[in-house]
C-alpha cells in the first residue's frame, strides 16, 4: 500500500520552513525586486534557519535529514521568494558533491562551516559554451608543483559572488577527455567573481561570472579523484540540482494559486466575486491539478533519493512537469488578475518573470525530454 502522507515530523518541518519564510524572508522580497540585490539578509535567514544543514550528516554538524525534507523546505521558501529558494537550492548543490565524493578530511574541513552557515557553496559547471553540454567545458587544470592551476571562465553561476566554497569542473589541459572537480575557495589566488547578471526574474538571486586566472588550488582540494569530474558534477546536478528546481517550481505554483484564489474571491464583477465565474474556476482547477501532480512527481523522486536509489530520471520528469506547470500557473494568475496583473504592485508579475527563469536552470525542458526519452528507450 502506498502512503502519500507526510509524517507528523515532516509536517512540523514544513511548518517551520513556512513560518521562517513568512517572517524572515518575506520582508526582504520587495527590496530584492527593486534592486536586483539585497541577497545578504535572506542568505543569513536561511542559514540561521539551518536550511543549509538539512542533508549534511550529523557527524559533520548537519541535521542528517533527507531529500523529502529538503524539498518541503524549498517549496515553502519558494512560495515566498523563488529567488531565495534558488540560492538555497544551488547552495545545496554545492554541498552535495562534498557529501558524496569528498574524503573524510575534506568533509571535516568544509561541511561543518557549510552546515552552520559560516560558509556558503555553489557549483560552477556552466561556461559561455553552454551548460547542458558539460563536455564542452573549456576551463582547464594543470598540475604544477603539487598544486592544480585552473584557467577559464564560468558563467550564469548562482551564488557566484556570495559562495566562498565553489565546486568547479575543469578539463585536463593535456587530455580533453579527462575532467576533474575541485573545491575552490573564494580567497584562493587567481579566483575572481566578475560580472553580475541582471535577470528577467528571480531578482535578488545572485547570478554571475567567475574568472579563474592561473587559480592555484591545493592538490588536496581535488574532489572525487582525478578524471572523475564528470561523475562528481553530474551525479549532483541530476538529482539534487533538478530536485531543487522542483522545489522552487512547486513553491511558485502554490504562490500563484494562493494569490489567484485571494484575488478571485475579492474582485467583484457583475455584482459577485469573479471566483463564481466558471472561466475563473477552471483556471483555478487547472492550477490545483498541476500543483498536485507536480507534488506527486517531486516527492516520489525525493523519496526514491532518500532510499539511496538513483532518482535522476524521476527528477527529470518532475523538473519538466513542475517548471512548465509553474509557467502555466503564472500566466493564469496574471490572466485572473486582469489589468492588475500588469501592475508591479501585484506579486503575480514577479511570479510570471520568475517562472521563466525556472526552465533553463539545471537543464531546460527540452533537455529533460531528452533524458526522459533515453530512459524510456533504454
Amino acid at each position, binding site marked *: 500500500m502506498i502512503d502519500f502522507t507526510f509524517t*507528523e*515530523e515532516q*509536517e*512540523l*518541518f514544513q*511548518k*517551520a520552513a513556512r*513560518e*521562517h519564510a513568512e*517572517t524572515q524572508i518575506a520582508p526582504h522580497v520587495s527590496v530584492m525586486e527593486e534592486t536586483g540585490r539585497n541577497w545578504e539578509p535572506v542568505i543569513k535567514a536561511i542559514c540561521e*534557519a*539551518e*536550511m543549509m*544543514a*538539512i542533508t549534511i550528516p550529523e557527524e559533520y554538524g548537519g*541535521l*542528517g*535529514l533527507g531529500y523529502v*525534507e529538503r524539498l518541503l523546505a524549498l517549496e515553502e521558501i519558494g512560495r515566498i521568494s523563488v529567488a531565495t529558494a534558488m540560492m538555497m537550492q544551488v547552495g545545496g548543490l554545492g554541498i552535495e558533491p562534498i557529501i558524496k565524493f569528498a574524503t573524510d578530511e575534506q568533509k571535516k574541513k568544509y561541511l561543518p562551516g557549510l552546515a552552520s552557515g559560516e560558509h556558503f557553496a555553489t557549483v560552477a559547471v556552466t561556461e559561455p559554451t553552454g551548460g547542458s553540454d558539460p563536455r564542452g567545458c573549456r576551463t582547464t587544470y594543470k598540475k604544477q608543483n603539487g598544486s592544480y592551476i585552473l584557467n577559464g571562465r564560468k558563467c550564469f553561476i548562482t551564488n557566484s559572488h556570495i559562495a566562498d566554497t565553489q565546486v568547479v569542473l575543469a578539463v585536463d589541459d593535456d587530455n580533453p577527455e579527462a575532467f576533474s572537480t575541485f573545491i575552490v575557495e573564494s580567497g584562493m589566488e587567481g579566483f575572481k567573481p566578475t560580472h553580475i547578471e541582471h535577470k528577467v526574474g528571480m531578482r535578488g538571486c545572485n547570478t554571475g561570472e567567475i574568472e579563474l586566472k592561473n587559480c592555484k588550488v591545493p592538490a588536496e582540494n581535488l574532489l572525487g579523484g582525478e578524471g572523475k569530474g564528470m561523475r562528481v558534477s553530474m551525479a549532483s546536478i541530476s538529482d539534487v540540482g533538478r530536485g531543487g528546481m522542483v522545489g522552487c517550481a512547486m513553491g511558485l505554483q502554490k504562490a500563484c494559486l494562493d494569490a489567484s484564489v485571494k484575488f478571485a474571491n475579492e474582485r467583484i464583477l457583475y455584482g459577485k466575486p469573479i471566483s463564481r465565474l466558471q472561466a475563473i474556476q477552471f483556471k483555478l482547477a487547472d492550477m490545483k491539478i498541476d500543483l498536485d501532480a507536480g507534488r506527486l512527481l517531486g516527492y516520489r523522486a525525493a523519496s526514491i533519493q532518500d532510499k539511496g536509489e538513483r532518482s535522476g530520471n524521476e527528477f527529470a520528469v518532475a523538473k519538466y512537469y513542475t517548471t512548465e506547470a509553474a509557467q502555466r500557473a503564472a500566466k493564469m494568475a496574471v490572466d485572473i488578475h486582469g489589468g492588475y496583473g500588469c501592475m508591479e504592485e501585484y506579486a503575480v508579475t514577479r511570479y510570471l518573470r520568475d517562472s521563466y527563469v525556472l526552465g533553463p536552470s539545471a537543464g531546460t525542458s527540452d533537455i529533460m525530454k531528452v533524458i526522459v526519452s533515453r530512459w524510456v528507450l533504454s
Partner: protein
Amino acid sequence: MLSIVVCVKAVPDPKEADKIRIDPVTKSLTRLDLPLVINSLDQNALEAALQFKERFGAHITVFSMGPPSAGNVMKECLALGADVGILLSDPAFAGADALATAFTLAQAIEKLDEVDVVLCGRASSDGATEWVGPELAIFLEMPVVSMVSEFVETEGPCWQVKSDIENGYRLMQVELPAVFTVTQDVNTPRTLSFSGIIKARKKEITTWGLVDLGESAQSVGLKGSPTIVSDLTYIESKRACQIIEGTLEEKADILVAKLVEAGFI
C-alpha cells in the same frame, strides 16, 4: 532549577476561521475537522518559560486538555524547547467550561512534585473568557497576576511583574509559587527550528485520563461545568460603500454623526 508549568490550548487555526461551525446542540465549536494550532497567547506563555530556561535553567512541563489530535500541538511545544508534554485527554473531559478546565488542569498539575511558576496565555482565541488562569490559581492555592506584559525582576523567590490595566499598568510583586497570565506584549514567540524538531524525537508525550487524575466524572467536562451557553450565533461581516454628498463641512458633519452612531467616537 525552576519547575515551570505552561498551560496551552489547542485551538482551531485562525487562518481557517471561516470554516468554524457551531454545534447547534452543545453550543460549542466543532473543531475535530479543523487543524489545531497552539493558542496564540499560550505561545507567549511558552516563550516566557523558554527564556527563563535559557537565562537561569528550568524544567518546563506543558499541559494541555483536549482531544488526541491535540498531540500535534504538544509535539510542537516540545520542538520549541519544552521538556515534557502531558496531554489530558478523555471523553469525560469534553465540553468543559473554564471552571471545569481549570479544575482538571489543577488536578493534573498537583500530581507534579514541585511547581514554582505556572504560565498561561491571557485568553484563548476561541473561548476568550480569560478565566482559566485565575481559576487555576484558586484551585492550586497560589497567587495570580493576570495580564502580565513584562517580567521585570525574576531573581529570587519574589518576582516583580508589570500587569496591564486600562490606560496603564500595575507593578506587582508576588511570591512564588504563582500563576501568571501573559499578554502578547510580554515577548515575541520564537518560530520552530529544524534542530528543535529533531531534539523533540527523544521527548515523550504522556496522556492522562480521568482515571489517572482520580477524579469523579461529575466534576470534569460538561458535567462539571456550571456555565450554560444559551446561544451562539455567527457574526456576518458585510462591507458597504456609501458616497457622502454635500459641501466639505456638510460631509464632515455627516461623517462625524455616522461615526458617533456606530460607536467609534
